Structure formats: structure tokens, C-alpha cells
């Protein structure tokens, strides 16, 4: 059934690409017709090759094409102030996605005034400068955004929430402008166990997720600062394969766990002509409460530290190079050992072949293993994986 749906979506996307005229979008129906919609889409295929450690997907040391994305969205203005939209998204990135079609976002949006709008549905989470566009390859230079602040493995937790949002934009005269968003809701996550994981997750629930982002556009053209805060709690029952016996019937061991988390990030961005400079600093506070420490360990709040600095430049209409340095410490109280750090120096070349098609090549030099996943590396502990390793990515995206 999934394959059938995926084939249908892929066929639809391909057909749309083929019929797209040299315009920015496909408009179906006349502008004022109730049946008219604006339609956009993208198709991406990537290739990952790593030196020494597997990253994001299994067997990347031999090269992997498990890096595909496809999205199609529809937007309709029902009135001048009221809009609805939907994006379907299909992804395959190593063990995640697996070509399952899902609603990336959908919403009803009513803009009462410049300073206040309200949105309900499944909406992208405004966290940092780029989280709400993290899966949009055509919107940035890098193939992988700095993984310290925008980790691919946390995409399910960070990208979108189902609930409501208030937003607005206020110009403050000579001192710039404020752009603000506040949201609350929950997250629905597929809890299918990752291959090699010792746990099976049941009754997964996010009782709350709240947060907001405030962006100050400074009087200096192109300069903006932002602060983002998000609080959530994950509740779940986890089972292990180890069994206990009640009478004569063996049952799996279980534990009820709660993971409260607070995520904060401070951001700065400066765009001057074709030059973009960005830097972000983030701290995540994550606790772990458990009803059975034998099954799933509890822990006091652990603070992780994440930061990056990035520079991109539009050298011509068709070429944009970019570099960044990104660093992450999973526990600020223990920065020693390869498993407790991840340094990442990245360089990218983005080639815009035409207004609807781009190709990117990217290389990373990595120091540390904190960004790796043991389950993708035959269960090898992070402390035993290669400390210095490399990642090479090629990606091409068509979009309209």
C-alpha cells in the first residue's frame, strides 16, 4: 500500500515537473476562481560517502543513495486574509523516512492585522534561524545544515508540531522591526523501533510542546538577531527483550519514562549583498525520569552545548560557495573523549544549473563521534569509533 502511494506521489511530482512552464509556480485555475490553487514541489536525490564511520545511513563507508526527498504543496487563499495549505513529504534517509508519505505541514491561517495572525494545524516550528526550512534544499547553500543545532536525527522532534500558533510583525520606526511567533501543541511520532535498538517504544505521547521565537531586525539593513525557546516533554513506555516471568508466562521488562526538555538558541545573521554570515549558540536541557532504572536508566538534567558560524557567498547567478564550523558537546560537564564532542568543518559548492535545478557538492572534516549513531556502526560504542573521519555529499534538487 505504501509503495502504491509512493508511486502515485512520485508520478504526480514527475508529471508536474514535466508540465511546469518557466514560471515560479503552477497555478491551477484562474486567480479569482474558488478552485484555483498555487502548487509547488521539489524532488531531491543525494549520495553520501563517509570515510571510517557510517553516518546518517548504514554502510555509507561504501556509499549510500539512501538520501531522497520529495515534497508537493498546495496553497489556496480563500479570502484576502484567510489561507489554507498542505504539504505532502516523502523522505528516505538511512533508517528514517522509508518513503512513507506524510503531511509535512497543513494549516488554516487567518491574518487579522500586520501585528497579529493565527494559524492552526501542523505547522513548522520556528527554532533558530533555519529550523522551519531545514528540509528545503533549494533555500540554502549547505546540503546539511550545521548538525549541532539542526540535527537530522532529531527531525521528528523539531520540525513541526500539531496545534496552534500566533504570529506578527511590527515595525518600530528607526529601531528596526520585530517578527514574533508563539506556539503550542504536540508531536505525533512514528515509534517503530530502529533496527538494532535494545528498546521497543509503546504509548508514546508528548503532553505538551510550547515555545516561541522573537526576531529583531536591526536598523542596519540585513542584520537580524533572534532568540528561540522551546519546552516539551516526551512520555513513553519502553520494553526490552529481557523477560521476566509472572507465574509461567514470560513478559518483557518495561519502564514508564518521562523526558522533559528545554531547548534555547540565540541567533545572529547578517546579509550584505551576496554575502551571508550567520552564527547561532544553543543549549539543550534534557532530563530523564524512569519508573524502572533496570530497564531504562534515569538521569538528572544534562546540558548539551551547540554552536556554529557560517559564511556563504553568491559568486554568480549559478555558483554559491559556503563554509561553516559547527561544534557540539552532548554534556557540558564532560567534554573529554571523542564520544563527548563533535567538531565539523564543512565546505559546499552550490551550482544553480537553471532556475529549477541545482546540484551541490559538500565535504566535512569531522573530529569526535558524538554525532554518530552506534546502531549504524554495528553496535560499536561511540568511544571506539574513529575519532577523525570525513563525509562527502552530492545532492541534486529540482523544484518549482
Amino acid at each position: 500500500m505504501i509503495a502504491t502511494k509512493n508511486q502515485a506521489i512520485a508520478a504526480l511530482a514527475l508529471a508536474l515537473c514535466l508540465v511546469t512552464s518557466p514560471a515560479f509556480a503552477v497555478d491551477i485555475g484562474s486567480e479569482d476562481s474558488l478552485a484555483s490553487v498555487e502548487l509547488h514541489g521539489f524532488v531531491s536525490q543525494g549520495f553520501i560517502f563517509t570515510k571510517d564511520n557510517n553516518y546518517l545511513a548504514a554502510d555509507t563507508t561504501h556509499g549510500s543513495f539512501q538520501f531522497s526527498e520529495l515534497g508537493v504543496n498546495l496553497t489556496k487563499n480563500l479570502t484576502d486574509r484567510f489561507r489554507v495549505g498542505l504539504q505532502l513529504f516523502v523522505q528516505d534517509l538511512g533508517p528514517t523516512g522509508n518513503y512513507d508519505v506524510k503531511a509535512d505541514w497543513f494549516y488554516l491561517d487567518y491574518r487579522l492585522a500586520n501585528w497579529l495572525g493565527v494559524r492552526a494545524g501542523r505547522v513548522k516550528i520556528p527554532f533558530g534561524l533555519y529550523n522551519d526550512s531545514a528540509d528545503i534544499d533549494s533555500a540554502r547553500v549547505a546540503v546539511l545544515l550545521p548538525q549541532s543545532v539542526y540535527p537530522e536525527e532529531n527531525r521528528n522532534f523539531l520540525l513541526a508540531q500539531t496545534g496552534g500558533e500566533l504570529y506578527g510583525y511590527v515595525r518600530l520606526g528607526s529601531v528596526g522591526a520585530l517578527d514574533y511567533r508563539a506556539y503550542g501543541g504536540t508531536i505525533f511520532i512514528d515509534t517503530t523501533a530502529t533496527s538494532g535498538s535494545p528498546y521497543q517504544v509503546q504509548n508514546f505521547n508528548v503532553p505538551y510542546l510550547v515555545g516561541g521565537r522573537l526576531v529583531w531586525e536591526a536598523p542596519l539593513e540585513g542584520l537580524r538577531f533572534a532568540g528561540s525557546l522551546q519546552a516539551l516533554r516526551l512520555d513513553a513506555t519502553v520494553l526490552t527483550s529481557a523477560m521476566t516471568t509472572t507465574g509461567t508466562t514470560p513478559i518483557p521488562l518495561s519502564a514508564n519514562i518521562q523526558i522533559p526538555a528545554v531547548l534555547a538558541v540565540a541567533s545572529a545573521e547578517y546579509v550584505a549583498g551576496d554575502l551571508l554570515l550567520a552564527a547561532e549558540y544553543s543549549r539543550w536541557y534534557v532530563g530523564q525520569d524512569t519508573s524502572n532504572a533496570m530497564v531504562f536508566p534515569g538521569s538528572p538534567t544534562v546540558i548539551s552545548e551547540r554552536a556554529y558560524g557560517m559564511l556563504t557567498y553568491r559568486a554568480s547567478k549559478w555558483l554559491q560557495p559556503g563554509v561553516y564550523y559547527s561544534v557540539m558537546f552532548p554534556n557540558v560537564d564532560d567534554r573529554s573523549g571523542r564520544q563527548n564532542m563533535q567538531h565539523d568543518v564543512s565546505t559546499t559548492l552550490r551550482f544553480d544549473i537553471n532556475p529549477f535545478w541545482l546540484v551541490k557538492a559538500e565535504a566535512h572534516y569531522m573530529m569526535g563521534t558524538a554525532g554518530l549513531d552506534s546502531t549504524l556502526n554495528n553496535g560499536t560504542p561511540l568511544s571506539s569509533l574513529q575519532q577523525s573521519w570525513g563525509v562527502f555529499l552530492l545532492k541534486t534538487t529540482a523544484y518549482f
Partner: protein
Amino acid sequence: MPARLAISAALIIALTALCATVFGQQHSPPPPPYQVIVHPRNAEVTVERKFLEDAFLKKITTWPNDDVIRPADLAPDSPVRRAFTRDVLNRSVEAVKGYWQQRIFSGRDVPPPEFQQDEDVVQFVLKHEGGVGYVSGTAKINGCKVLVVR
């Protein structure tokens, strides 16, 4: 001697003609690269550059009288659009396209409609009271109001 007088007279006449040409051109300057136009019933006479930037990037959506702003663009390869985008939005057309990629695929908004010709922009603005667009400096605006950009 008469030859010298004749040469001098010819030089004076040539210099006068050159000056007339140069100063004559200064008195009739070339048309501006674009005109910003709105619906004739729009109450505004002038507009701040920043307001226009926010309107075309859809950061703001209403005029001061609370009418909804309906911006209209020319095609990305239009030299008029390049001039307007550089002067008013303070960035390149490619950078604006990147901005809209973020907005489109994160579900924030969609860009203004794009038109191939000045006449199409004029028609769009005349059709919508909150309409605002830009056309070449020599375009016929058919009753649209031209705003002065401050």
C-alpha cells in the same frame, strides 16, 4: 586674417552647438527605470521604501487604511524587476527567490504573482484596490496612480 576669423567663428558655432546639445539633454532627463503604481483610489501619495520592501516580501499585508496589500511582480528576467528589486528590496532577484523558497516550503506564504509585461501589471493593479506594482518608466499606466518612493 579673414581665414583666422572664419576658423574662430566656426569654432564658436561648434562649441555653442555642443553646449546646447549637452545642456538640452540635461533638461530632459531619461525616464526612471521603473514607476511604482497603485490603484487610483489608493489614498497614498508617497510611500517609504521600507514599507514597499515589507509589502513585496509579505511581511506586512495591509495598507494604513487596512486594505489588504496585493503586490505584483514582473518576471525574474525583467531588467525592470532587477532594478526595482535592487533599489527597493535591497537584494538581488536570486536572493529574493531564496527568501521565497524558504517561505513556500515551510508553509509561511507564497510570492506575489509574476507577470510578463507591464500591461499585465497595470491590469492587475486596476483590478484590485489594494494592488501595488511596478512598471517600466515609459509604460502606459492607464489611470493608475504613481507613488513617490521616499
